[in-house]
């Protein structure tokens, strides 16, 4: 992973969701262009949902976790290649 890669990390231990609700379309796909403050995924911890937004614009390079998988605090979730 290059120096330029920007990584979305989980702020809390929880469950990783790629959409805002079960059955909804995924928020982002690999290869997709995103803008600053776009919601890229959700983390649920203790029934509280947190939206994770990208602080950079760029291309979604790799989604590192499967939808609905458990994640740890500070775990890398999504790699973004900034513009």
């Amino acid at each position, binding site marked *: 992973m290059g120096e330029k890669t920007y990584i979305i990390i989980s702020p*809390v231990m929880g469950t990783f969701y790629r959409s805002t609700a079960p059955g909804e379309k995924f928020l982002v796909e690999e290869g997709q262009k995103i803008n600053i403050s776009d919601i890229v995924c959700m983390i*649920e911890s*203790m029934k509280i949902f947190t939206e994770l937004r990208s602080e950079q614009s760029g291309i979604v390079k790799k989604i590192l976790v499967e939808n609905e998988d458990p994640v740890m605090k500070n775990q890398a979730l999504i790699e973004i290649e900034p513009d």
Partner: protein
Amino acid sequence: MLFKKILIANRGEIAIRVIRACREMGIQTIAVFSDADKDSLHVKYADDAVNIGPALSRKSYLSIDNIIDAAKKTKADAIHPGYGFLSENANFAQACFDNNIIFIGPCAQCIARAGDKSAARQTLTDLGIRVIPGSDDILSSSDLACDIAAKVGYPVILKAAGGGGGRGMRIANNKEELVSAFSTASGEARVAFGNPDIYLEKYIEKPRHIEIQILGDNFGNYIHLAERECSIQLRYQKLIEESPSSFVDEKFRTKLGKAAIKIAKAIKYTNAGTMEFLVDKNKNFYFMEVNARVQVEHPVTELVTGVDIVQQQILIASGEKLKIKQEDIRLNGWSMECRINATDPNDNFMPSPGLIESIIFPGGPGIRIDTHIHDKYMVTPFYDSLIGKLIVWAQDRPAAINRMRRALAEFEIKGIETTIGFYKKVFENNGFQKGDIDTHFLENMK
């Protein structure tokens, strides 16, 4: 006939609470657990336990099929649903009925009636019990807002239909203020929630959340177990509860109790339930909703009335008549409860799951702890943040406050953040000690 075997369709402290009630009655217990809870205390305490699926609630504790299968496999006569999860799910109560398993709670139709807010509003109006008056629908113009405000009486509050948590709300004391508040509130709602729709309610000044615990058997007998004061909340989550309420005297208690029983009779409610009211500073009370289950805060009622609410639920569900009469209910002393949550008060009450390295529990006179946690327990992120309840009993409110402060000082949980330190501040607060509280108390606490 009393049940031989009860399956508890829940986890955590409430599963343990139900197991304890059963054990004292000589009833066998079946625990259910998800993959995340296989080492939990409720699994260890029960006579038998069944794995009902993966950690995600949707696939385990909320799976009606998995739970009914577990009950059939273990030949349970009845299911206790606890609170949360499937406890107020009419389909679950119906599935129990269809499989000849007794659901320990109100019947499916009754749960549906309790949950139907607009029908409930009509029923209550017919009974002469007040609900918070206001516009039932979204307001199309400030003229319409003024018409409704004139009917319900000032002050009124405008609320954003898309909102919550206090944002987009505006209070108006007269027509001039309402006209200007209407356009501001609508604009704010558009910016904050992308939806300009607003509705109007009569503004309740210094509202208190006061609820009445009731018990009703299958033969039309009802009693109430007085009130619980639950005004100490944050974002509509109760954090501290007490019984009795320092705001309720004997006359008002009788009035609230009669109203609660009237509602229960009207919807043919059975088993344990709670009628929630919002009470204004002049002791006008407005019905909010029915909680068709045992509540988190039930222990404060148990400690001042001496009635074991969970055992009563079991007896009523097994078809027994209520043996306790209204005149048997005498309040003795004062009880207070702190909900111990795995959240971080210094970080906006963000969830704080993780490994508990060590715990020291408070003890001594007048202390009750309902919890499932222990040393080296892993608080997982899959379920809600309640990890225990610290409940105290003393002869009066000042003594209960002192006892709670003493217990909080003894209580130590290492490894995760909890609300213990926050409660120490609340119990030191002068306004709280004087009982000068309302549902906005924590927002305004310095």
